[in-house]
């Protein structure tokens, strides 16, 4: 499988596939006689895993840890649970932050009276600056 095919199959940019290889997440593939990268099913499987993890917001380091754990399936899965739970807590914290942000922005936009900047509620809400 050529890099373009692998990229399409996993909805990944070719550049990103190369990046994962440089970052050590994806093992280097065999090369064709013309020195093109030639991928096997194990690459497809591994890249799919990486993409799913990234879609769920895991950091590259977390993905690296998860891959290492996935490579050693006989081990207890406590470590996987810990990584996922830690990440879930982080996601929930971001949700709380963004929800607060959304409320603030709604309030700011709701207070806009379409006048001039001198009494622009959006700029006023963000901070005093008249003396700037």
């Amino acid at each position, binding site marked *: 499988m050529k890099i373009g095919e692998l990229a399409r199959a996993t909805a990944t940019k070719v550049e990103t596939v190369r990046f994962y290889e440089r970052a050590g997440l994806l093992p280097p593939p065999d090369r064709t006689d013309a020195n093109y990268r030639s991928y096997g099913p194990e690459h497809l*499987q591994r890249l*799919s*895993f990486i993409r*799913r*993890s990234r*879609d*769920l*917001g895991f950091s590259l380091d977390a993905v690296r840890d*998860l891959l290492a*754990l*996935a490579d050693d*399936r006989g081990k*207890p*899965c*406590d470590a*996987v*649970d810990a990584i*996922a*739970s830690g*990440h*879930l807590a982080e*996601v*929930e914290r*971001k*949700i709380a932050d*963004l*929800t607060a*942000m*959304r409320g*603030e*922005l*709604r309030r*700011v*936009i709701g207070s*806009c009276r*379409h*006048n*001039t*900047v*001198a009494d*622009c509620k*959006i*700029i006023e809400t*963000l*901070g*005093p*600056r008249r*003396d*700037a």
Partner: protein
Amino acid sequence: MTQSGIAIGALSRMCGCNIETIRYYERIALMPRAERRGRYRVYAEADVARLRFIKRARGVGFSIDEIRTLLELSTSDSATSRNSCSNARQLASTNLSSVRSRLDDLKRMEAALSAAIAACDRDAFTGCPILDALAGTDAAWSDDSSRNAP
């Protein structure tokens, strides 16, 4: 410091902004170059107001470039200010949409992660549902659209 003037440490505390970040804002010209007294930066009240503005705008998710625009709007003259007001509103609306879509993404992640973690059963070790989910080998999971996976 004998004369009036705010040191970077005081500015940092007043605005809840790291000293390193204040220096960075100066490097990228988001904050004006501070006056130097000897080798120390000295700030005025206007800098406090400006930095608070930046800090608040960052807090609601505006990018550095957007803040630059907002700051320009807020100091523009009255001839163009009606126009500037609608520009500010436009920026805030765009920002609200991006906050909404980031929230949607995160909620999708939250649901998927919660489902995988809930499925993790350490007593009867028949494989790891979290790893299965990531590998796409779990039937309940392979469909990305399933929002309420068990």
